[in-house]
């Protein structure tokens, strides 16, 4: 079987437009708190979620919007939840880090790694109550070091639970590089729990679709969990207003705020040797420079551009689809903002 690129693209673009619209509302101060976008990881979500069926469950982390949307949760109620409205998906009680839909068996959490226990519990219920249904967890590379996620991989392995563990590896946990925080190799870790591991290019939605399709088939057949490892890039960095991204976008404004106290502290009497100070200064500077060279600036890393390039062979259909999606999003926005909060 080969993927239907049109529907995958449609899912991805809709999610992108929806999240960009949300970002604007956040910027305008209508959405409070931390807001983590999934822009850049749409290929992973779309590739996996399009295999899900009724009765399948999902455990999401702090970056759950794309998966909720692609799973078919009503966009208006989702966005009204972001706005904190009492008729939002969770009556304004959860917000964008705590999105829940009982109907779709989807739960999110702001606690890194808790997708592990949650997906294990969903899968246990699937195993006992709904034969051939499965549970999927989406989480990041940072979560791989949280004990409860590792425990859950082991539990899923010994109980042969129908789980797809999806690690969306963007190489970062906030400002910490994955390689500075994680020893060894994630695929080896999964195998160390007796779980087969598959790695796939997370920017290529066809590949994700194929690989996760066959993994999910095995899982439905009762063969126990699989670990899917997919690399991607988050365009907005960790969350909206992320400092390193701000530095990238407006170095003249942001750098002095960082550099002045840094230099003062560097020069203060008492503390490490000059050599160590210089090494420390270099390391701070190199994170800034890394940020400037950030892969997030490179549109080649955009999974949507990639799949679009293929679909351009049919420009008329493409335009139609894109126009339609834009209209849809505008409609959603109108509905969302039109109604005043009760």
């Amino acid at each position: 079987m080969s993927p239907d690129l049109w529907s995958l693209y449609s899912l991805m673009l809709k999610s992108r437009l929806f999240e960009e619209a949300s970002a604007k509302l956040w910027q305008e101060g209508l959405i409070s708190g931390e807001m983590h976008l999934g822009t850049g990881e749409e290929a992973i979500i779309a590739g996996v979620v399009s295999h899900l069926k009724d009765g399948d469950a999902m455990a999401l982390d702090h970056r759950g919007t794309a998966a909720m949307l692609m799973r078919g949760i009503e966009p208006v109620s989702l966005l009204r939840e972001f706005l904190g409205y009492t008729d939002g998906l969770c009556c304004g009680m959860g917000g964008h880090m705590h999105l829940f839909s009982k109907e779709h068996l989807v739960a999110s959490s702001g606690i890194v790694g808790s997708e592990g226990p949650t997906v294990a519990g969903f899968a246990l219920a699937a195993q006992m109550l709904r034969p051939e249904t499965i549970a999927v967890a989406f989480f990041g590379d940072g979560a791989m070091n949280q004990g409860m996620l590792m425990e859950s991989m082991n539990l899923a392995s010994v109980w042969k639970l129908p789980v797809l563990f999806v690690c969306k590896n963007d190489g970062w946990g906030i400002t910490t590089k994955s390689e500075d925080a994680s020893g060894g190799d994630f695929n080896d870790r999964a195998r160390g729990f007796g779980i087969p591991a598959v790695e796939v290019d997370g920017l290529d939605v066809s590949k994700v679709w194929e690989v996760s399709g066959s993994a999910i088939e095995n899982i439905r057949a009762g063969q126990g969990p699989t670990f899917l490892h997919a690399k991607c890039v988050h365009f907005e960095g960790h969350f909206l207003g992320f400092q390193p991204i701000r530095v990238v976008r407006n170095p003249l404004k942001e750098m002095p705020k960082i550099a002045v106290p840094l230099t003062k502290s560097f020069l203060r009497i008492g503390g490490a040797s000059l050599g160590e100070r210089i090494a420390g200064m270099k390391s701070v500077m190199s994170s800034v420079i890394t940020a400037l060279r950030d892969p997030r600036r490179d549109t080649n890393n955009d999974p949507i551009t990639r799949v679009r390039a293929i679909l351009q062979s049919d420009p008329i259909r493409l335009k139609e689809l894109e126009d339609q999606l834009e209209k849809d999003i505008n409609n959603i926005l109108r509905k969302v903002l039109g109604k005043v909060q009760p």
Partner: protein
Amino acid sequence: MKTMSFIQAADDALAQAMAENPNIIVFGEDIPLLRRDLLVRFGQKRVRGTPISESAFLGAGVAAAMAGLRPVVEMYMVDFLGVCMDALLNHASKIEAFSGGKWTTPVVVRAPCGGGYGDGGQHEQSLWGMLAHIPGLTVIVPSTPADAGGLMLAALKHNGPVIILEHKLLSKTWLEILGSGARETVQFDIPDDGTKGEVPQKWDPIHIGEAALRREGRDVTIVSLGVSVHRALDAAKKLEAEGISVGVLDLRTVSPLDKKTICKEVKKTGRLLVVDEDYETFGLSGELSAVVLEAGITCKYARVCTQTTIPYNRKLEDQVLPNVERICASVRQLMK
């Protein structure tokens, strides 16, 4: 009438519920051995052993409850909740609120608690005060076989997370496993009325949040729970001989508290003594004083609780845990 031991009663009520509701499952470390009687009746799918991964399996219990099962998750001891508190603090207790009331987490967590058999400070804690601090959790501490069964059944019917703490001194099974199984040379101060007692022919749920007045008293009201109820009753008998009339109210449920009954009893006597095996500060004993003060009741107040890490040395341990002597001394002080 039928009599049962404390754990027999809890397990029997659980079995009754399991026979009625096929979605009830039980899991935890060593459960195939510890609940082998349930295993041979309900099968290996419903009675499961886990790895020593409390975060994973407690969190899985919460999520399984959301997805249609009715899990009873067993912890080896309440002390070990330290490694997996997140499942209770940030998930079980909050998801109903987060989902706008649309999704509940009806999981029952069962954990042995309490001291008095020389296992040391990491294995003898009570911690109900800590758990009850979290809005959204129901916390139950039975003191008799009848309550252990009736409240177990109530927990299994409650549409939210419930933690049942079972005191090890009330459980022959635990004591035999943990300290006395192969020897007859140790003795613990076991309250007979708590370990064995009358139970109904068929279990009915006991209303969660209802305290039970174990003894009427005119001079002092002791509010207590778990094993300490029996200590309080022993003390009350002793004090009767001195002409002091002491009432004993058994909370049975820590959260929610039966404020009405508490206030009624304290108002009668004007003296409140809390006897609580949990840590003294920032817990149940404080909350009870707030409850009476909020109700505008003026009373004399004292508490007999555990003030420090529980010592291993048996003599020191008995002094640190609430005991009859400390209770009597405190009552006498209140009578001054």
